[in-house]
C-alpha cells in the first residue's frame, strides 16, 4: 500500500536508506531515476538490492522508482528487484504501452511486484484510464506535476491553479477504479505553509495521500490527511450512538443530522486513525 505519506529516498546513499527506516511514513519510494547520476546507477542497484533483502522496513511498503522506459536502464532496474520483498515498481512518464511492457517483464520473472504509474505527461493525463487498465498489477497512481508542467509548457506556481485539471482528472480516476493515489510532491522543502496548503488542496480533490521529497515534509502531510482528535471523537460519538440503537434511519449527534454517508465517513475516520471500528464500546 502507498498510504498517506510516501517518502522519496535516493537509492545511492546507505545513510539515507538507513535513516529512512525511522521516518513515520507509510511507504518509501527508493529512487533509481532522477536522483541517481548515470555513473552511479549500477552501485545504486546493488545497494538497493542488498537493503531490500537484508533490512527490516518495520511495516513500511517499499516501492522502487525505475528509470524511464525511454532509457536502456529500466529493464536492469527491474531485474535487481523482481525477487525482493519490495511492494511495487514505480514507472515514470507512464503510458498504456509502457505499463504493459513492465507488466510483461514482471510476469516473465513471476514477480509479485505491483505497479505504480506516474502520470506526468499531457498524454498520460488524457489516457489515465487506459494506463490503469493496462495491467492488473496497477494498484495506485502518482501525479507528477513538475514534468507535466514541462510537457505543457506552463509555469508551476505555489497555488497550483495551472495543474488543477490534471490533478482533478487523476483524482477522479483513482476513485473510479478504487485505488490509492498520491498527490504530486511539493518541491519547496523550506515552505511548510505552502506544503500544508498544497496538501489540503490535494486532499480536497480526493487524493488518498501525498509524496514527500524531504523527511521534514512528513509531519505536515500527516497532519492534513490524518483525522484530528476532534474528528475522531465525533466519529466515536456517531458510532456509539448507532450502537445504542439510535440508528433508526436518521439521528442527531452534536446537533448534526447523521445518516448513512456520515456513518460511513465516521468508520473511515476511525480506520484512518488506526482504530478498530468493531471495537467501539
Amino acid at each position, binding site marked *: 500500500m502507498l498510504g498517506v505519506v510516501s517518502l522519496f529516498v535516493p537509492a545511492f546513499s546507505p545513510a539515507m536508506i*538507513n*535513516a529512512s*527506516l*525511522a*521516518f*513515520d511514513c507509510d511507504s518509501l519510494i527508493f529512487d533509481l531515476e532522477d536522483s541517481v547520476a548515470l555513473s552511479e546507477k549500477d552501485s545504486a542497484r546493488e545497494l538497493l538490492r542488498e537493503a531490500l533483502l537484508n*533490512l*527490516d522496513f518495520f511495516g513500511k511498503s517499499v516501492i522502487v522508482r525505475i528509470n524511464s522506459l525511454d532509457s536502456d536502464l529500466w529493464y536492469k532496474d527491474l531485474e535487481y528487484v523482481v525477487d525482493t520483498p519490495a511492494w511495487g515498481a514505480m514507472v515514470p512518464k507512464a503510458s498504456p504501452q509502457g505499463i504493459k511492457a513492465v507488466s510483461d517483464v514482471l510476469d516473465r520473472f513471476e514477480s509479485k511486484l505491483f505497479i505504480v504509474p506516474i502520470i506526468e505527461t499531457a498524454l498520460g493525463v488524457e489516457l489515465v484510464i487506459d494506463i490503469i487498465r493496462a495491467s492488473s498489477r496497477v494498484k495506485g497512481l502518482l501525479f507528477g506535476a513538475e514534468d507535466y508542467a514541462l510537457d505543457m509548457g506552463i509555469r508551476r506556481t505555489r497555488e497550483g491553479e495551472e495543474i488543477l485539471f490534471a490533478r482533478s482528472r487523476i483524482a477522479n480516476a483513482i476513485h473510479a477504479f478504487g485505488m490509492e493515489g498520491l498527490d504530486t510532491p511539493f518541491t519547496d522543502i523550506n515552505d511548510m505553509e505552502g506544503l500544508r496548503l498544497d496538501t489540503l488542496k490535494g486532499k480536497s480533490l480526493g487524493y488518498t495521500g501525498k509524496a514527500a521529497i*524531504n*523527511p*521534514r515534509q512528513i*509531519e505536515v502531510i500527516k497532519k492534513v490527511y490524518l483525522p484530528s482528535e476532534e474528528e475522531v471523537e465525533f466519529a466515536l460519538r456517531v458510532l456509539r450512538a448507532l450502537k445504542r440503537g439510535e440508528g433508526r434511519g436518521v439521528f442527531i449527534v452534536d446537533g448534526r443530522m447523521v445518516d448513512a454517508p456520515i456513518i460511513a465517513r465516521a468508520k473511515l475516520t476511525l480506520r484512518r486513525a*488506526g482504530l478498530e471500528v468493531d471495537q467501539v464500546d
Partner: protein
Amino acid sequence: MINAVGREIPSKIEGYKKVTPFSGAFSILGSGVRASSRYKTVLPGEAKVLGSLRDAIERVGLSNGMTISFHHHLRNGDYVLNMVLDEIAKMGIRDIRIAPSALFECHAPLVEHIKKGVVVGIETNYIVGPVASAVSEGILDLPVIMRSHGGRDRAIEAGELHIDVAFIAAPSADVYGNVNGVCGPSACGSLGYAFSDARYADHVVVITDNLVDYPLFPISIDQTFIDYVVKVDKIGDPRGIVSGTTSITRDPLELKIAYMASQVVEASGLLVDGVSFQTGAGGTSLAVAKFVRDIMRERKIVGSFGLGGITGFFVDMLKEGLFKVLLDTQCFDLKAVESLREDRNHVEISSSMYGNPHNKGAVVNNLDVIILGATEIDLDFNVNVTTGSNGYIMGGSGGHSDTAAGSKLTVIVANLLRGRIPIVVDKVTTVTTPGETVDVLVTEHGIAVNPRREDIKRKLTDKRLPVVDILELRNRAYKLCGRPEDIEFGDKIVGVVEYRDGTVIDVIRRVKV
C-alpha cells in the same frame, strides 16, 4: 565492591580518597560544616593590581604540590589556563594539581606540562580534546576525578577539593578585584562556575584584559574575595568563547526526535503555567526548545524559569514572555551575554546554587523538565556522556547528572544509531548518570520509558506516542548495525567518575592503544 548501578568498584583506588561506592541518587544526604577559606587585611592605599602574572604567582606563594583552579566560561577560546601553566613551568614549580571546571581542545599544551611533571593531577567536570585522549591512554599517574557541575561545588564546599589558588579569568575587572563576565572584548556572560573558587580558595588571582576604574558595574564576583588583579593582553579568543551550537538542527532525523520529545513534554502534563525548563545547546536540544516554544505560544503558557546553559533562543522566549526569569550559569552565545547584561529578569547564578546536592536546595530541585543527550544509554537507563564507544574520555557529566536527579522529567534525546554505532546498548561503557534519575529516552525509532515511571508511560500511550520497550530499541539497533565488540581496557584506572554526592559511580580504565 559492586555499586548500586552494578559497576565493579575497587575498594581502594591509588591516588584517590577513601572510596564510597554509589548507593543511590539520594542515599547520601550531606550535612556538616562548610569548608573555610583564608581572610586577610588589605590596607587603605594598598594596590591589588600587580605588574605581571609571575608577580601574582609569587605573591600567593604557589609552590610544588598545590592545587590551582580555573573556570571554563571562555570554553574553547580560553587563554588563561595555558598562560598560567606556562608561567608556572618557567618558574620551575612542579607536581601541581589542577581543578578546572572543564578542559577543551585549546588546552592541548597541558599534555606537555603533564609529561614534564608540572601537572600531576586533574579534577574536572568535562574533558574533550588532546588532554582527554592523553588521560585515557594513561599519561597521568593519578586518576582524573570527574564530577558533575554541582558535585564540584559540593566537593569544594565540603573541603574535599581544596583550592590553594584560584585563577579567575575575568572579561572585566576593576582595580580592586570586582569582576563581571558581561563587559569587555572577551565577554562570556555568566561566571557561575567561578563563584565557589572565589569563595573557598585560599588565594584568588583575577586575570583580565579589560581593567576598568573602580567600581566596576555590574559586579558579579566582588572584591572581598580577590587578592590580586593582573592585566594581560587577551584572556581568550571570542570565536571560541561563544561557540555553543546556536542554530536549530535541519537534520530530519534529529528534528523527528526533537518533535517527539516535545510531544513527550506536552503529554507529561508538566507543560502548564509555571513550567520550568532546560535544554542543552546542541542542535537537537534547541529544536526541542523550538517545538516546546510553539506549544507554549499556542496554548498561551507562561513558564516560571528557563535554566542553563542559556542560548539566544531562551533569551527570545524570555523577551516574548514565555518565561518570567532565566537563571544562568553560563552563556552560550552573544545574545545571552547581552541579555544577562541588560535584562534584570536574566539572573546569574552560581553552579552551586544550580546543582550542588548538599547546599540546602539547588535550583535543579525546582526544575520540571530537562532535555539531555547521551553517548550511550543501557537497558537500565544508565547514561554515558563521559566516554565514547571506543573507551576514550570525550566529555563528562557537566550538569547532566545534576539536572537528571533534580528535575521532575528527564528526557534523553539520542539517535538510535550514530553512524554505524548503536547508542542503546546492554551496558554503557561508563555510567555518568544513573538510570533511576532518567525517565524517558526518545530516539528516531521510538520512545522508551523507564519502568519506574509507569505514570508517564500511561500518559504517552494515551496520546498514542510510539512507546516501545528499551529492549526493542536495543534489538533494533543491533539488527541494523550489529552488536559492537566489547572494548578492551587495561587494568590501570585513569579516571574516577564521582556522582554528585561524592560517591563513586564508575571508574574509567586505560584504553589499549
